[in-house]
């Protein structure tokens, strides 16, 4: 993917750029808000990673201007602020996802990947599938090899999030946010517990894989 990184702190930018390049992406870095906006309007990027506090034009202003110009490129906003309302404010400005510093690089990478392949809104699928597992979002049913599986609402939502990102890593924090609507880390094994319960219900061979230190990924069994 082509990623535009707008970050004024040279050290942080270098680390992020190195990581993203290492993951096989093309990174275009600018350190200034106005320059970032010009680059973004120039187009050709799959994802924008924008720091919230920038010289020239801050992250919120940049995203607002971008959305105002009708450009829908997904934006991941980074922030050094611990502010409580900042996440809401960031999303209100038109950013698609929000990540507070400090973050594990795996977290950033997972979120960039999730944004990069986000389907257009009107192309929302009603059927999600991995190997022989099918989830019908309209009928709210799950089947594996034709066998119906009963899931609790929370388990259903958990599986839905994983299947929407099938093949891509979903971090623990992303699950807490999207499944539980929790924006802090409860430091309990709630995610692990639900994942293992879900795995047990879905049966063998497992379709939900744990990537240590990164998160979870839904994909066909290895070798399949």
């Amino acid at each position, binding site marked *: 993917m082509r990623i535009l990184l707008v970050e004024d*702190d040279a*050290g*942080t930018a270098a*680390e992020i750029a190195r990581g993203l390049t290492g993951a096989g992406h093309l990174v275009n870095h600018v350190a200034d808000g106005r320059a970032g906006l010009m680059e973004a309007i120039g187009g050709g990027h799959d994802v924008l990673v924008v720091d919230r*506090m920038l010289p020239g034009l801050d992250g919120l202003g940049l995203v607002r201007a971008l959305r105002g110009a009708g450009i829908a490129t997904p934006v991941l906003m980074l922030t*050094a*602020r*611990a*502010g*409580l*309302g900042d996440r*809401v404010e960031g999303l209100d400005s038109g950013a698609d996802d929000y990540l*507070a*510093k*400090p*973050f*594990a*690089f795996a977290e950033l990478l997972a979120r960039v990947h999730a944004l990069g392949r986000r389907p257009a809104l009107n192309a929302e699928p009603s059927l999600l599938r991995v190997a022989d597992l099918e989830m019908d979002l309209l009928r709210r049913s799950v089947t594996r090899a034709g066998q119906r599986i009963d899931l609790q609402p*929370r388990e259903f939502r958990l599986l839905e999030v994983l299947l929407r990102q099938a093949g891509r890593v979903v971090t623990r924090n992303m699950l807490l946010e999207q499944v*539980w*609507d*929790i*924006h*802090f880390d*409860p*430091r*309990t*094994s*709630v995610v*692990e*517990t639900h994942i293992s319960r879900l795995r047990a219900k879905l049966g063998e061979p497992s379709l939900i894989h744990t990537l240590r230190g990164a998160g979870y990924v839904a994909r066909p069994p290895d070798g399949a």
Partner: protein
Amino acid sequence: MGHDVMPGEKPARWWATTGFRITLLHLVLTLLGTVLLAGIGFWASSRFAGQQIQAEIERDAGVLLNAGRLGGAASIALSIEARIAADRSGTQYFLLSGPDGGRIAGNLSTAPRSAGWATMGLDAATQDSVLLALGTPLPAGHFLLVGRDLAPVRELEAQLLGAAGWVGGAALLLALGGGLVVGRSVVRRAAEMERALAEVEQGRLGTRLLARPGGDEFDRLARRVNATLDRLEGTMAALRQVTDDIAHDLRTPLTRLRQRLEALEGPEAEAAVAECDRILEIFAALLRIAQIESGARRAAFSHVDLNAVMETVAELYASAAAERGQVLETALAPGVTMQGDRDLLTQMLANLVENAIRHGREGGRVSLALRPGPEIIVADDGPGIPDAEKSLVFRRFHRLDAARSTQGAGLGLALVAAVAELHGLAVTLEDASATSPPGLRVRLKA
């Protein structure tokens, strides 16, 4: 008045307002003044009328006695008859009695033969009039009584009373009206100020009171309050700037440090990353508490389904409780909602439950209850908190010496206190039971 007031404070009752008190005072003073004035008028007029009548009686008696000296009793009798005939008002009474007490002349049938002033009923039958009479013994056993009906005096008194009533009533109405006008303007100004300050309390620091140039003491007070608010707003802005700067200046290098550590391998590096996260967490919690206490978050309040929040928190911590062999009991109340910040309320409850699990007895129970009100109760069966320390635990960085210092920087409960206050929830700490260990029950009540 439909504006917000401080949590827990009721709007002033009408009888407790300055306006009402001013009106009442005005009314009482006016009433006292009117009564005093009317009383003096009444007393003076009534006395004057009485003296007038007395003087007339003395004059009449003098003339009759003169006639008696010149022409004897017959002359008095003649003079009496003439006077009675000439009296159109019918208020003059006379009696000339002989030595045997029988009437010689006059329009009174009988009368006591006592010398000097007396008042008497006019007639045993009618009894409606009272006479003021002057009795004078005459030579040869005759007796002269000259009297006047006091009815005109009584009538004057009645009229005076009536007039005083009217004047007093009118004065009362005027006082009431005046008091209301003055009182209402005081109440209105005070209410305006209260409304504006309530806005400020809600976190809208830009609100200012109305202050007319020149103006009265209210305007002067308003200007002083506005100057204070300017100062407060400036301080808050500076504080926000400082926290932003700290956040930016410290978090950015820490982030870089964390990234570098992450790139390293081995358990030492992992421990260093965890330590780094811990620093950042404490730091974030401090900034968050400061931000909550500034009240700015109230602008983002919405309708929160407390029951759903409780359910989520119970779910988040079920596994943590299970790890300590504890039962996490929940008594929910579907449909209980409140105005608030969902993220903060969730975090507050999470902190309380985490605390209860951490300090509760291993293999014991932690209970979580919601009641309409809303009232939230989180209880554990751990060592509890000594009464002397109950008020201290919500302080930033406070940690109990013994049992409750297993881990954490002591910010968990400080955050609880800040969030509770933001939402107008009163926090109370109690022993959960009378047995030992007492356990701890935290009660949050709107």
